[in-house]
């Protein structure tokens, strides 16, 4: 017996008069990708790629097209491809951004679009950097709840106002766009970096947490919050729109009011 199965709507050729959202404009993009392969050379080089992309495409789509259709050796990290996992932070036209959240049509496509690995961290291959130094300082601020009271039978309750206090810094996805945009971090990598301070802020100002003093003491270090020069690079780089410099300033004030 053969049954006539209806095709899914997406597979049906729509007649011209129905139309969709209109044609998506396509344009040619010139991408300059920073390439590094330690097995071939210690020097980084620029590779040029020309691809035809659509108005709905992001830089990540262009990189995919290059990797899948032109040069399979182009290496980059990406996981969710929707701005949640924080894997694909890279330096696009000199600015740290997520490749999956940067639409090509928002960039100047009349000039080559440069794509580089984020600065200040050791490059492993092409756009992939070693994130271990970044996570090293992240671990040092103890980014987890420390509560010395009795464990409640249900959840730990918190008022909406108390939750609001640190709402901004809960948004961090650890993409390292902020830390690798910080000129103080570029110098010697000893500065804690904005991301670690943001994640300390998230617990310092959490009313349920009891280890705020310990975190403030850690960040009162020679390489702690006092190395921040308030250049706002981190705030500008954050793909989640976290007010990073403000969070650092709040930690500075918390240390001051605790000491004085």
């Amino acid at each position, binding site marked *: 017996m053969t049954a006539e199965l209806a095709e899914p709507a997406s597979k049906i050729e729509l007649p011209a008069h129905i139309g969709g959202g209109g044609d998506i404009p396509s344009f040619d993009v010139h991408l300059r990708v920073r390439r590094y392969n330690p097995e071939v050379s210690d020097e980084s080089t620029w590779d040029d790629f020309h691809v035809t992309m659509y108005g709905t495409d992001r830089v990540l789509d262009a990189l995919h097209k290059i990797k899948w259709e032109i040069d399979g050796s182009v290496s980059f990290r990406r996981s969710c491809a929707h701005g949640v996992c924080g894997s694909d932070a890279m330096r696009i036209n000199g600015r740290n951004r997520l490749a999956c959240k940067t639409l090509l049509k928002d960039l100047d496509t009349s000039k080559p679009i440069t794509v580089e690995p984020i600065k200040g*961290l*050791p490059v492993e291959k092409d756009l992939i950097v*070693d994130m*271990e*130094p970044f*996570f*090293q*300082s992240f*671990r*040092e601020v103890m980014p987890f709840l420390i509560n010395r009271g009795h464990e409640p039978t249900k959840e730990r309750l918190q008022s909406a106002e108390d939750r609001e206090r640190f709402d901004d810094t809960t948004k961090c996805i650890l993409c390292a766009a902020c830390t690798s945009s910080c*000129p*103080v971090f570029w*110098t*010697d*990598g*000893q500065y804690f970096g904005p991301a670690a301070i943001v994640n300390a802020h998230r617990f310092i100002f959490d009313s349920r947490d009891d280890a705020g003093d310990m975190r403030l003491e*850690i960040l*009162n*270090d*020679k*390489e*702690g919050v*006092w*190395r921040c*020069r308030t250049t706002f690079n981190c705030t500008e780089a954050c793909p989640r729109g976290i007010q990073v410099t403000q969070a650092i300033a709040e930690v*500075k004030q918390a*240390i*001051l009011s605790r*000491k004085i």
Partner: protein
Amino acid sequence: MSATQIQSPRSGGAKVGSNRIAPQYRRTGGSKGNFEMLAWLFMRLSGVVLVVLIFGHLTVNLLVGEGIHAIDFGFVAGKWADPFWQVWDLAMLWLAMLHGTNGVRTIINDYAEKDATRLWLKIVLYAATTVIIILGTMVIFTFDPCPVVNGVQLPGGFCPSP
């Protein structure tokens, strides 16, 4: 008999992940103490005080009375005969020197990449600061507009004859 140990790729060393991190990125462990906090605080406070001191200095020297035309050796000598201006200038000297030195110190920390470069630049900086502060302080307190050397009055039109 011992089971084969397979080292997990990110373990090793006393600290988690430390053997995976290139030496120049390894955090050297911080220093205790509040020096950086106090330096940060001093920059803000001295900055506010310096705004008052410097604009007061400029107003009195350049705008009040005959203004810029009144400035000569005698004008400065007259100001330093008054303890009020001695203290004013002393505060300005010390705060400006320490404020500036601390600023240059942070610039050296931010831009020098090698520890040896950092050390030498700071030695030069601190030596220069010390010399200028001591010299300036001595000038303010030992300033004598009509010095007498070997019983002879040094030339100076405004000094009373002995």
